[in-house]
Structure formats: C-alpha cells, structure tokens
C-alpha cells in the first residue's frame, strides 16, 4: 500500500488565486522524496492539503489507504506530521517538554506513555538535556530539531517538512541531515537546497505553477538541464550532481 496518494488535487485561495491545478503524486512507504520548485509553485499549498489544514476544491488525498475527509481528520493528522518553515511558529508552549507533549496529549495520551514519547522523540533529535528549557532560549538549529521532535512524538507515518534547512548554518544542516537519515519514516521534503535533496532523497518531484513538472531519481532530475531551466531551478555554483557521491 502507498503511504501517500494524491490525485487530481486542485485548489484556489478564497481571494481567487488558483494555486493547484490538478496535482497527482504517489509516495511509497519508506520513500524519501524531495519536492522542488520555484517560489509560488504551490509546494506549501500542497503540503497544507496533506493533513487537511486546507481543503481541496477538487481531487483527493489518501494516507496509508485512508481517504482524507472531515470524519477522519484526527486520524490523518496523527499519520501525517508537518514541520513548518519557522520553528517559532511550531514551538508555542512555555517549555520544550510541553511543546513535544502537545501533539500526543491531543491524541489523548497521558502519564507514563506520554513521558516515554517525549523522551524518545527528544532522544531521536539529541535534545533530551533541554527538555525543561523555554524554546526561545534555544539556538535556531536546536529549535528546528525540537520542532521535528514535536511531530515525531505523535508517531506519524509520513514526515513532511517545509524547507527544513532554511536559516540553518552548515553545521546545523549537517546535524539535521544525520538525524533525518536515522529516522525510519516516509519523508516528503520541500527544499530549495539541491545538494541536500540529493543527499537525503532518492527521488525528486519538480513542481511549477500548480502542477507536477517532473518526477524521477533525484540525480537524474538535477542533471536534466532543460527541465531545471524551464522550472526556474538552479544548481549551486560548482555543484555537479553526476560527480557527487
């Protein structure tokens, strides 16, 4: 069974701006997929559909075979975890512990089970010693890692990240990559960071103007110059996907 199935998804914002024009995307269980595309391509809009924060005008989303609709919104949100771009939006509780507890507590988990989940999630991102600190006393990279922990604590099936590397210094990027590689999860990662996509994701999907413009192994997609140019994508100076490890 596929972890994620999106078909014919179309969406227009209330002000009339149409952001998605029929998106089809299938992600198999355990796959790590990079979602590439220029600003305004509809990547974030697509992401917000995956757990029902936005409701599509047409088309459907299935998560692990379960169709997304109003009735099973809670179950879908348990399965699909989204890490937003700005950790300050994601960490809103007074301490790291309460922030990590927020998701599982909403699922009705309490007591020892809750404590175990908090501990495991923070251990997975190497932040256990900061459990009682307020989020605004952490560095940006640490906040990003706690943001990942807040959704890991919900035991999701799919981890969706909106630009996980934005504003991170190279060392923090490296630490995050090591953490993500260690997670046994289906992943969908929106990113402008091509080397990062190549390192972490075996497959890349290119989005532009509200549709899927390309889909294939990351290395081939990055090496496909006409495709890249047509979709306002560029490789960093001096980076050649066919020569990197």
């Amino acid at each position, binding site marked *: 069974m596929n972890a994620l199935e999106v078909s014919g998804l179309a969406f227009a914002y209330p002000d009339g701006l149409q952001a998605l024009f029929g998106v089809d995307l299938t992600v198999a269980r355990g796959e790590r997929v990079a979602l590439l595309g220029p600003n305004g391509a509809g990547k974030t809009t697509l992401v917000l559909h995956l757990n029902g924060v936005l409701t599509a005008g047409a088309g459907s989303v299935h998560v692990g075979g379960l169709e997304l609709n109003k009735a099973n919104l809670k179950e879908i949100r348990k399965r699909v975890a989204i890490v937003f771009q700005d950790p300050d*939006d*994601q960490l*809103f509780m*007074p301490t790291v512990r309460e922030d990590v507890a927020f*998701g599982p*507590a*909403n699922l009705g988990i309490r007591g020892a089970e809750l404590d175990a989940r908090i501990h495991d999630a923070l251990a997975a991102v190497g932040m256990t010693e900061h459990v009682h600190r307020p989020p605004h006393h952490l560095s940006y990279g640490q906040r990003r890692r706690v943001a990942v922990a807040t959704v890991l604590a919900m035991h999701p099936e799919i981890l969706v990240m909106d630009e996980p590397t934005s504003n991170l210094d190279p060392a923090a990027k490296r630490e995050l990559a090591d953490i993500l590689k260690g997670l046994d999860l289906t992943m969908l990662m929106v990113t402008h960071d091509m080397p990062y996509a190549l390192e972490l994701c075996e497959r890349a999907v290119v989005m532009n103007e509200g549709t899927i413009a390309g889909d294939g192994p990351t290395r081939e997609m990055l090496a496909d110059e006409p495709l890249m140019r047509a979709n306002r994508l560029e490789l960093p100076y001096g980076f050649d996907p066919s020569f990197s490890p």
Partner: protein
Amino acid sequence: MALTLNARVPPLTLLRRLAIETPFLIFVVALPFVARGERLDIAGLSLSVEGLWGAWNIFVKATLGAAAMMLLASTTPITSILHGLQKLRVPSVIVAIAGFMIRYADVIASEMRRMKVGRQSRGYEPRVLWQARALASSAGTLFIRSYERGERVHLAMMSRGYSGTMPELAEVDASPTDWLTAFLVPAVAAMICVLAWL
C-alpha cells in the same frame, strides 16, 4: 522583610524594580494637600488628617503588593508560575494566553528591533518627536505581522491535533509541605490583621 531576606534577591535590584510604583506615589504625596476634613499643621504645612491616612494606606498596600510581585517574579521561573496558575484552577484559556504572551514577547520584540534597524539603515534617524509618524506606521505593520504569525501558529496547532482546548500538561504536584509553605505568608498577614483588630 523576612521573606525578602529568605528569597536572596539583592535589595538594590528590588528597590530599582519598585521604582515602577513611583507614578502612584506622586499621586499619594498630593493626597494630604487636597483631601478635605480635619486639618493638621506640620512644619508649617496644613495637611488633611484623612488625606494622610489615605496616603499611608495606598503607600503601604502598593509597596507590599509590588514587592510581593517582584519577589515572585525574581525567584520563580515563569513556567513554574504558569504551572502554579494551572494548579490553582485558573481558567486554562487565561493560562494559555499568558503562556503565549510570554513565549512570543521576545519574538515580537526582535521583529520590532529588526524593523527599527531597517528604518535606520535607510537613513531614517529623526529626533524623538518626528519619529512618531514612522513609529505609528511600524506599529501597524507589526500588528499585521503578529496577526499573520498567529495564523501560522494556529495552523501548526491544528496540524498536531488541536481541537479547541489546551491539553493539561502540569507535571508539578504540590506536596502538603508546599501548600503549607504557600499558606504561611497569608496566614501571618491574617494574624497581624486580627491582632491589630484586638
């Protein structure tokens, strides 16, 4: 006083923080001069007895109240205060609002700082009074930005299964000793009150 000593807060810090009640005190000083009733001559000044008592009352209450607040704020981590409020059955909405306020005060302040740097970097450095205009428009922008952040935070909350009520997460349990210690101060105050009455 005993509490102050026990709390190990530097007295100078406490005094400096108590300066916040100065505006009230100015009003208090005026009171004996303007209040009516029986008058008293002290060092050539005609003061109202009622006004003096009123001033004394306000001064003592304000100082005690402010001092108690300062002590609480400087000895107790904010998260513990929030947990305490939750424990004391303050409505969870109020606790949540206080929590959000504390969490985002820094974020909004730094946003404000960035906007100021942005203004100054483009050569905007007028004298205090003329800054009002730019400040007003910045306040508008800041409001919009904070509002949008609020929306994003709400999205993030919904994504983690938020459905209208904050989950109760207080992990602190107050032991009988804690309750006893906490009631000590009001009990002493009540005792003094009763003694004064007799």
